[in-house]
């Protein structure tokens, strides 16, 4: 008989945590409260060199006070930390590497610190684990990147240590669950400690310490777009999207991001969309942050349901007043949840529409530039057809059936396909061409020693490109050569566009693979701001019946 049973303790992690908490016990009072002055000492007590540590932060709410405190620990005691976190947008996140406290990073989104990430990798200050999507990283929290210590943030705690994360719940449940149920330590910064919470989002026994931060956590109104800044060209592209894609495919379930193209589309639903007779036929179920520019469409009855990755400053009261549309708790306020929204985004959308800085001749697109390691957050998960998807929707089926030589590739088995759309002007800011021979991502891979060029959406996942020249229906292209011809045909006066052969483009137009605004029956002279249901921030407030309260920097009255 084989003797394979190991002789070991099965509670090492638990005992390790108990020891650390014992060392921290003198800082922890009633209700797990820790004075903010003791935060650095607390962190020194519970964190050890080489720990896997998570600082909560994504592109919206940030555990900024805890991030700053972690920078103040004695680097003789704490060093070589392995940071795992959604995003590194704060200076403090990268200072950890500069200060020698952290060494390795696994993340999903770089934001404003993307330049420093690249620089630190090059200088050997930062060892990059990998750039992930949000879902991918969340998955690894439960597999091989489980945090030992997580530093999270919430609006409020009660006197037992229960937390209210409310409107901006975002990543918190995912981080806490991964950490706490693997015997890790969870420390929360909160804006205030109160007697009674509106609701409990995270129970107290999953939390080890609560610190009332000297100032409220930083929150960026990242998804607020001022309608006053929408341009005529964005409106033209929006008209093309509605008439050439949303309508014909019957796109009901979708995500919108922060690009001004989706802003234009949102603001044209009650006007141009109404005129096209699309109400009830498109945009009924959405996964997005509570964009203020969605208010006119919601108020005119376009939308049935919205689930949110996160919150958005100033939208609290509006969202709370529309519980038929948004996911709200027993207390009446929104509960966002990035993991669930991203899951829906990966598996259940009819369409993803976004923008990018560059598209190459094969259709690969990336926002990477030569010297910034930014990551793509959730875009790659939403910008592809999920291989594991099995349920059918009208648009998914329709798009899947468009491939002319489908039987030659797949046999006779019917398949569906998500619409993945990039909407761009052929030239971006400073007349930089969007269509390029080779993505800057290649240069970045070289500059930052990455194994692969960071691509946001792969060419073979992309089904449509919309430019001022027309729509390329890549989903209708039988092979790479015809995809490349379709891309050239809408690439305008860029070097790529100039390689288009007029007779070839003509043939593609006849085959319905390229459609110009004229082919779609769109009058370009109508492409102006009079089509916007709201033209400025106050119009949005008016649409909301005074429920939307824009952040001060967006007000125009």
């Amino acid at each position, binding site marked *: 008989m084989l003797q394979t049973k190991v002789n070991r303790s099965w509670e090492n992690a638990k005992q390790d945590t108990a020891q650390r908490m014992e060392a921290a016990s003198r800082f922890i009072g009633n209700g797990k409260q820790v004075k903010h002055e003791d935060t650095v000492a607390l962190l020194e007590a519970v964190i050890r060199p080489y720990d896997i540590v998570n600082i909560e932060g994504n592109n919206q709410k940030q555990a900024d006070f805890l991030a700053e405190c972690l920078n103040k620990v004695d680097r003789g005691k704490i060093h070589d930390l392995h940071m795992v976190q959604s995003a590194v947008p704060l200076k403090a996140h990268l200072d950890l590497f500069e200060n020698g406290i952290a060494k390795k990073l696994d993340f999903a989104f770089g934001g404003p610190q993307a330049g420093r990430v690249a620089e630190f990798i090059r200088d050997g200050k930062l060892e990059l684990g990998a750039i992930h999507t949000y879902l991918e990283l969340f998955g690894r929290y439960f597999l091989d990147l489980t945090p030992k210590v997580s530093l999270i943030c919430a609006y409020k705690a009660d006197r037992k240590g229960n937390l209210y994360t409310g409107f901006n719940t975002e990543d918190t449940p995912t981080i806490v669950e991964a950490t706490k149920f693997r015997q890790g330590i969870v420390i929360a910064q909160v804006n205030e400690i109160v007697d009674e919470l509106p609701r409990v989002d995270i129970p107290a026994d999953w939390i080890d310490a609560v610190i009332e931060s000297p100032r409220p956590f930083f929150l960026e109104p990242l998804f607020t777009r001022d309608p*006053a800044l929408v341009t005529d060209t964005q409106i033209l592209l929006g008209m093309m999207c509605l008439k050439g894609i949303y309508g014909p495919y019957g796109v009901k379930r979708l995500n919108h991001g922060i690009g001004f193209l989706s802003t234009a589309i949102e603001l044209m639903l009650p006007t141009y969309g109404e005129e096209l007779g699309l109400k009830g036929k498109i945009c009924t179920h959405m996964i997005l942050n509570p964009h203020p520019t969605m208010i006119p469409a919601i108020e005119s009855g376009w939308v049935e349901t919205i689930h949110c990755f996160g919150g958005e400053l100033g939208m609290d009261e509006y969202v709370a007043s529309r519980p038929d549309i948004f996911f709200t708790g027993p207390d009446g306020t929104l509960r966002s949840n990035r993991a669930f929204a991203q899951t829906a985004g990966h598996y259940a959308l009819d369409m993803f529409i976004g923008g990018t800085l560059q598209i190459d001749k094969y259709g690969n697109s990336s926002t990477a530039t030569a010297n910034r390691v930014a990551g793509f957050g959730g875009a790659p998960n939403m910008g592809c057809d999920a291989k594991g998807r099995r349920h059918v929707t009208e648009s998914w089926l329709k798009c899947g059936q468009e491939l002319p030589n489908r039987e030659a590739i797949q046999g006779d088995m019917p398949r569906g396909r998500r619409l993945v759309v990039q909407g761009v002007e052929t030239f971006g800011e400073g007349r930089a061409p969007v269509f390029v021979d080779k993505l800057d991502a290649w240069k970045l891979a070289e500059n930052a020693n990455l194994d692969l060029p960071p691509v946001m959406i792969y060419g073979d996942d992309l089904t449509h490109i919309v430019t001022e020249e027309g729509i390329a229906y890549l989903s209708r292209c039988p092979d790479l050569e015809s995809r490349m011809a379709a891309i050239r045909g809408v690439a305008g006066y860029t070097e790529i566009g100039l390689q288009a052969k007029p007779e070839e483009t003509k043939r593609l137009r006849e085959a319905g693979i390229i459609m110009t605004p004229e082919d779609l029956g769109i009058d370009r002279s109508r492409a102006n*701001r*009079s089509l916007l249901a709201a*033209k*400025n921030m*106050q119009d949005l*407030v*008016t649409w909301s019946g*005074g429920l939307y309260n824009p952040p*001060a*920097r*967006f*007000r*125009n*009255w």
Partner: protein
Amino acid sequence: MTKWTDLQSASFLESNARDRALGLVDEGSFTEFCGPMDRRPSPHLGVLGDAVEYDDGVVTGVGRIGETPVFVISQEGRFIGGAVGEVHGAKIVNTVRLAIEMLDAMVAKNPDTPEAHKPIVVFSFETGGVRLHEANAGLLAHAEFMDQVQKARGKVPVIAVIGSKVGCFGGMGFVAAAMDAIVMSEFGRLGLTGPEVIEQEMGREEFDSSDRGLVFRTTGAKHKYIMGDCNFLVKDSVAAFRAQIADLAVLPIADFEAMRRIGSEAAVDKQLALVALAVELQPKDSLDVWAHAGNEAPAELNDAPYEEFIAKAQRLAV
């Protein structure tokens, strides 16, 4: 080109300078002076390598509202913030001069010319004041314009119209204040020093220019209306501004004296009383003054839609 009938319902805030000029007067009545076809761009900007515009950022001309000749000046904020340079300045100054000359000629010919037939000047501001690239000429234009406004006084009403994106700031803020009447929409802003400059000089604690709510509460039309700095607050449409101007166009010139902010002993007394009030009140925010004026819930009033605001707002009496 936008049709005149479509312009009437258009947002004044959204309309460019030429559309505003066309829409503020009767359909088809506008004749432009020194328009883009005359190709009079700034001689200075090109040398400095900056973009030029053939009308130098201002539309000038004459049209009619009913029987009244209306001389129109309309600044384009999208072209270097509507800043006043040499050509721009010459155009605005001479437009007022032409209005005065017309009045003089009319009266010389017929001393009993009806009020409604006498010309008025309407100035649609969208500017931060002097164009720094040609500052001497720009400053001189401010002085010359002030001179024309003084000459027009008691003869030709000079009406300020403010409801465009950039607002009316810098030296042009003085100019507007010196005019006979000011008409604003709630999106209009009027002031001397721009918000960014105040922050730079006084510090962020004193004035945070990124707080647009604060900027509007301090320089915006609702505050100007309560303070009496603007005479009329209208809805944000070309038609609403036009209707207000039409009401003013037929008034006897003497009626404008009471609307003025400067130029009389009474106006000076009023200004001094306001200074005394400021000292006494030590307001931390414009809403403190609104409350003093008798507005019980000033923050709510600030957020109220136009109709509700006009119905409820109590104006400061000094």
